[in-house]
């Protein structure tokens, strides 16, 4: 055998189902979408997800799906390294944990230490928890790519339906994927993460290329959706100015900025603890092994580089979109 693919089972060849999730309607729907998978009953999702000594780089070739009922905390206050876009009631929620893609820089690798994906099937409990909040801004796709997983979990559709029935709740679905379903609602933000082709190719394995993402953005704008563009995280590489400058030009040429609600700009930053784990998972990663500065427990680019990158990007963007629509992370 000379191809590593020959050793491994297919993605989601195994589905671990909590006993208490087994009879849930969502579980049945998900299992029906993956009829050839081996189903293994478990007591608790952490019995699989939180095992010691798991290896991301092996598991990512044959990710398991874990279906569970989340009986713990369902909604969290937004983290300081995430952007609130001026919304005071900034929260995030995770109906799924972990991502089908394999980006070098993804904080989830540092947070979870496994490539397996958990999907919580009790969406109704999440919806109830979010509905209780006062005028919230909810990011529903921080700990996963909910649109990228939608063909299996259906969870993006659920959030879209929820947004339709709760016009006072602002919801962001962030993705690198092309949504199959676009619903134009004033309180539903489709947030597309855009990276230069060079960055996609080198550091964002398994994600759609820039061209596909731009097509998805265009489609969303033309469908009347509220669209946010996230130039975040910007990754420092040799020649970054050329790559990111070209990216802004490509957006202007293919989509334009007229139909864009706002944009975010941020350089790569991560909890120092997560970075330690990521370096173990990603021994060959240029992004993870950059000699970062540590500031208040976060690994960040040196201040001069950070300022230069964000200023450059904001400068380029301000040629196309008002400064009041450009959000920097710091």
């Amino acid at each position, binding site marked *: 055998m000379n191809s590593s693919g020959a050793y491994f089972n297919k993605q989601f060849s195994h589905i671990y189902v909590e006993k208490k999730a087994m009879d849930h309607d969502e579980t049945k729907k998900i299992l029906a979408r993956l009829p050839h998978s*081996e189903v293994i009953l478990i007591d608790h999702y952490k*019995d699989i997800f939180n*095992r010691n000594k*798991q*290896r991301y780089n*092996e598991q990512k070739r044959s990710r398991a799906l874990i279906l569970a009922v989340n009986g713990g905390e369902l909604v969290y206050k937004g983290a300081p390294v995430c952007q609130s876009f001026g919304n005071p009631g900034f929260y995030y929620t995770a109906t799924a944990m972990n991502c089908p893609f394999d980006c070098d820089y993804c904080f989830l690798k540092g947070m979870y230490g496994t490539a397996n994906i958990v999907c919580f099937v009790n969406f109704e409990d999440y919806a109830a928890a979010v509905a209780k909040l006062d005028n919230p801004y909810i990011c529903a796709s921080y700990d996963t790519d909910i649109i990228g997983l939608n063909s299996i979990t259906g969870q993006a559709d659920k959030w879209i339906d929820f947004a339709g029935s709760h016009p006072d709740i602002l919801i962001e679905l962030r993705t690198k994927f092309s949504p199959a379903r676009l619903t134009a609602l004033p309180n539903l933000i489709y947030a597309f993460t855009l990276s230069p082709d060079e960055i996609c190719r080198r550091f964002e394995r398994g994600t759609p290329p820039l061209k596909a993402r731009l097509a998805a953005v265009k489609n969303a704008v033309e469908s009347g959706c509220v669209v946010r563009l996230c130039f975040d995280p910007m990754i420092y590489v040799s020649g970054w100015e050329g790559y990111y400058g070209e990216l802004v030009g490509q957006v202007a040429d293919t989509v334009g900025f007229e139909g864009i609600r706002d944009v975010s700009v941020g350089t790569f930053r991560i909890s120092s603890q997560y970075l330690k784990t990521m370096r173990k998972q990603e*021994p060959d990663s240029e992004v993870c*092994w950059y000699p970062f500065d540590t500031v208040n427990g976060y690994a960040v680019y040196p201040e001069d580089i950070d300022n230069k990158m964000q200023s450059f990007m904001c400068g380029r963007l301000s040629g196309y979109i008002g400064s009041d629509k450009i959000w920097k992370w710091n």
Partner: protein
Amino acid sequence: MIYIFTAVYCEAKPLIERFALSPDGDYPFAGFVSEDGNIRLVITGVGKTYSAAAVSYAHAKFGITKDDFAVNIGTCAGGSNTGGAYIINKVTDEDSGRSYYPDMLYKTGLREHCVTTVSDVVSEEKAALDPDMLWEMEASGFSDVARLLMPPDRVQLIKVVSDNGAEGIEAISEALLERVIRECIDDISTAVDLYLSIPADGEEQAQEDGTEDLFCCSETMRQDLNKLLVYCRNSGRDVPGIISSMRGEGLIPAADRKSGKAALNEFKRRILQ
């Protein structure tokens, strides 16, 4: 490298023959090893306590690494719906109720099944209660220890059904156990060959011999330098070129820690330019 753990010699015998293993040493658990040293087999004795002890002992004695495989191969009782060899995807200890889940990443070609570890030989009546279950006596002990020492994708179990519940241990003959393993030896061998062919996970460090001496490094500086060199390797930076020009400028080798620190900062600055 693969470490095979079987409970008794009659289960091991077909494996010893197939992989041409030779007796190895006189440690408490009888052992065998292949000529190239890539396969070791340990006979643990019957029951989960012995199985756990054997894994622990082998780990300490042979220095099993995270890239090695530990595979428990043995016989089991099976309900009436079972037969042949299985790769195990869930191990439940009947006494404690605890379960262990190996990662099921690899295409072994074997059918999958869960198994329950019991403390006594399973009777025909008990086996009849759950015609889809496998029953045996070592898997949970093996798993309990192996999961502490190795990644879950490297802890695997293969069980071959020998009977459908028996009236006492005397009904299970050595000849029976040897025969059922022998009947499945091709399937088992395919899985073992697959484990042997999986490449080891890449090692991460890019220490360049002698570089730290150029900067008169303290331990902290040495760690910083090592991380910096990994970044240089991963990003394709021209370390020899930078070192050479800094040598030419007389910045390195540093005479003392203080000038070494300044030189290291300069080295970093040039790398990030």
